[in-house]
């Protein structure tokens, strides 16, 4: 019993992350955009206003080398607006909105604990992106800063491919109009930190 108590304390002392975790509340005025192109035009589809309030948790290791960022955000595919009704319907169909109505971004880690001051800081982190029922891990480039109102602005960007998620980019008129496989995903999250 004494042995267990002692080793338990030792193991707790050696555990990876310091308590407490900081709660990050993602506010509703966050947004996400997806930019792509075809051989005849470019398109930009946005989820203009995030319609949920989600929570992320951030904690750092003693060494500050490992930063855990946990939690996820979900976005309804039907919320995408490509500024052209046909393009909007096409994106929703391509992303299999009827079968998989939401895409999810699960946050996993950051490469360092952000300084969180007014000066934008460039960091990277790992996320799992799930689209159309397929989940894939990506390293995301983030720009992060905190403004005078203590709101944290987390801007993430990453180039992904339709084919990463077993999706086929649409082609029309016997292949004369082709959508490129590459998509640039950008999101801007406004976050309030709660200790």
């Amino acid at each position, binding site marked *: 019993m004494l042995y267990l108590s002692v080793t338990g304390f030792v193991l707790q002392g050696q555990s990876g992350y310091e308590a407490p975790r900081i709660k990050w509340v993602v506010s509703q005025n966050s947004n996400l955009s997806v930019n792509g192109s075809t051989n*005849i035009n470019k398109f930009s589809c946005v989820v203009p206003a995030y319609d949920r309030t989600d929570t992320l948790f951030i904690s750092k290791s003693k060494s500050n080398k490992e930063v855990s960022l946990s939690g996820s955000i979900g976005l309804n595919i039907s919320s995408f607006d490509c500024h052209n009704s046909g*393009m909007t*319907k*096409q994106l929703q169909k391509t992303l299999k909105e009827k079968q998989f109505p939401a895409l999810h971004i699960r946050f996993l880690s950051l490469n360092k604990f952000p300084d969180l001051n007014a000066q934008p800081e460039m960091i990277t982190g790992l996320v799992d992106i799930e689209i159309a029922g397929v989940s894939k891990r990506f390293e995301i480039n983030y720009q992060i800063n905190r403004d005078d109102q203590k709101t944290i602005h987390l801007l993430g960007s990453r180039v992904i491919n339709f084919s990463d998620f077993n999706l*086929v980019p649409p082609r*029309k*008129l*016997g292949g004369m*109009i082709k959508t490129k496989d590459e998509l640039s995903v950008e999101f801007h999250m406004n976050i309030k930190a709660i200790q």
Partner: protein
Amino acid sequence: MKKILITGLIAGCVLFILSYGGLFLGVRYFPALFVDYNNPLFNSDGSRDVLFYMHAFIISFALSWFWDRFKTLFKGTFIMRGLEFGFVYSIIALLPVMWISFSSLDINVIMVISWFLYGLAQAIIAGLVFAKVNP
């Protein structure tokens, strides 16, 4: 019958080159006209590409039969016969189809006009081929 098939095949080859060549150049040089095709209304998985590219032959065989049946009604030089044949087909067949398409599908007027002109051009070209090969 053999004459109809051979004439249809020749017109089909000519239309295949001119129609899809024209479409390729249209997409390349007038891309704005084709933006609205990015719509689930149009097949997007490539499963019907063969049918799409067969259209030149389908219309050619149909028009070849029509020409053989009514060619005596078209008088004048081969150019005049080809032009008249194209206009007759467009007014009898294309115009009503375009009308019902525009009234029932979520497509714009530019798209419908372009389809009408595309069909008219195809029928005139086919008419010119028929007037030469099967006068």
